[in-house]
């Protein structure tokens, strides 16, 4: 490194005498006192914003030991009980070896009925009103224009779907292999799991919303207020990295229903789709539905030019 011009350079930078670098010597007792005082101040600051010392000193999710994780999960269950008065089961089931999830959506079949949107809401415990958070957004597009965001309508209303001359293009998290949202997160609160699911640790998210500006699919959503979620509608089967209730001020997103798919079930949107337009499976299994789709059909990657390499594929079955 070259020194900035115009500034005097001291001879032998690193070899300065210790007393010149450290300033006047400090009494060890005074040091200990300062340390205690600082810790005390931090503790009272934490207490005033509702964060316990335990949480503050916790390790990152990936570094938690089995016992520590169990404690964290138990604490979340306890908080769920306090907040909703409902007994919940929160797990943190890990990825299965040899599994990489892939999702297929048949644009030639989707009729735009939005059943998937509300099945997702029911399953994943997002805020219902103000803010209303939907992880799936169904876009109505013109057949004449093709897949074009400039000719897309999110707020379409109809007595019956599909409407003539229109097709429907649901968008949710594409679970990119090269996820821009993960790159920009300053706290490592979001990352890609080995089975391909991009997850968020709501305890680690500081709500800076960098990931939202990084995502080209609009797939991330922010809790502007404490989520409004009636206790009667709470899904008690929860995953730490998925559908556990969120606090105010964190970002959330589609997790391929991590609490279901890691147990072998289909995501809620796949299960509800009345026309069977949604396909899900293991990309590493040649017999899986998603691989059959990729072998046989015309597959489209949304915003392919951005090189996000999604694990979510659109296709035309006809």
């Amino acid at each position, binding site marked *: 490194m070259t020194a900035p011009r115009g500034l005097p350079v001291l001879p032998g930078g690193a070899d300065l005498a210790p007393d010149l670098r450290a300033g006047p010597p400090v009494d060890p007792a005074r040091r200990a006192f300062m340390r205690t005082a600082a810790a005390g101040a931090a503790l009272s600051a934490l207490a005033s914003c509702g964060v316990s010392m335990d949480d503050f000193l916790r390790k990152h999710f990936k570094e938690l030991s089995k016992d520590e994780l169990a404690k964290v999960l138990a604490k979340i269950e306890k908080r769920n009980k306090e907040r909703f008065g409902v007994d919940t089961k929160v797990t943190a089931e890990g990825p299965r070896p040899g599994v990489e999830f892939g999702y297929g959506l048949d644009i030639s079949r989707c009729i*735009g009925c939005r059943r998937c949107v509300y099945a997702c809401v029911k399953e994943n415990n997002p805020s219902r009103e103000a803010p209303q958070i939907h992880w799936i957004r169904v876009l109505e597009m013109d057949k004449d224009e093709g897949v074009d965001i400039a000719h897309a309508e999110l707020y379409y209303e109809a007595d019956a779907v599909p409407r003539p001359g229109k097709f429907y293009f649901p968008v949710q998290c594409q679970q990119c292999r090269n996820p821009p949202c993960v790159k920009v997160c300053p706290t490592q609160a979001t990352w890609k799991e080995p089975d391909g699911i991009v997850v968020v640790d709501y305890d680690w998210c500081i709500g800076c919303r960098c990931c939202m500006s990084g995502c080209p699919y609009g797939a991330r959503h922010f809790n502007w207020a404490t989520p409004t979620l009636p206790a009667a509608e709470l899904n008690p089967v929860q995953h730490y990295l998925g559908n556990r209730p969120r606090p105010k001020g964190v970002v959330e997103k589609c997790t391929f229903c991590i609490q279901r798919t890691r147990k072998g*079930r289909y995501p809620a949107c796949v299960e509800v789709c009345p*026309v069977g337009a949604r396909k899900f499976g293991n990309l590493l299994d040649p017999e899986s539905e998603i691989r059959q789709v990729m072998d046989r059909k015309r597959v489209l990657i949304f915003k392919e030019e951005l090189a996000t390499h999604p694990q979510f594929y659109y296709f035309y079955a006809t």
Partner: protein
Amino acid sequence: MHRAPAPGFALAIAAGLLAAIAARAAPAAKPAAAQERKPEVLVQARPPPFSEGIFPCMQCHKDQHDRTRRELQFHDEQQSIFDHDAEHRWCLDCHDFENRDMLRLASGELVPFTESYRLCGQCHGDKYRDWRVGVHGKRVGLWNGAKTYLLCVSCHNPHSPAFKGVKEIVVDGRKTVAPTLERIRPEPRPKRPEEMRP
């Protein structure tokens, strides 16, 4: 192959083969390799969505006499909507004349209503192949394990097959879906950002 053999059937064949091999005292037949293969996924379809009280058909069709093609004076609900290549097709192209509780393939083979996909697959081979591997139609169950198929007729009314909509029904206590003649009404639109502000 017309239908996937049930696992029991496959196991029986495997057991038979092993027994035959053992009888010939052929060494090192690698039975382990056969067991390592993933068991074939069961193609088990939901019950067909009959209109209430319509099945079995032989309740009414006891004495058969007229097999000439004609406009029916009964079965108005089918006659009125019939739009399945109506110019060339009529009832007995798919329904068996002698046994009305069965369907009839072009080959003359009779198939039950629970395997109607074999009948549909005679003409719609491309869709049938897609359906067999899970690309066309819907499956429920486990993405990596046992799953259930819906039949073609769960979503397509065989007498008016263009897809319009579906509804949930219960047949013999089992949930399934049936085709409707009306298109589906969509769920409410999401709120616009300005509607969410306090």
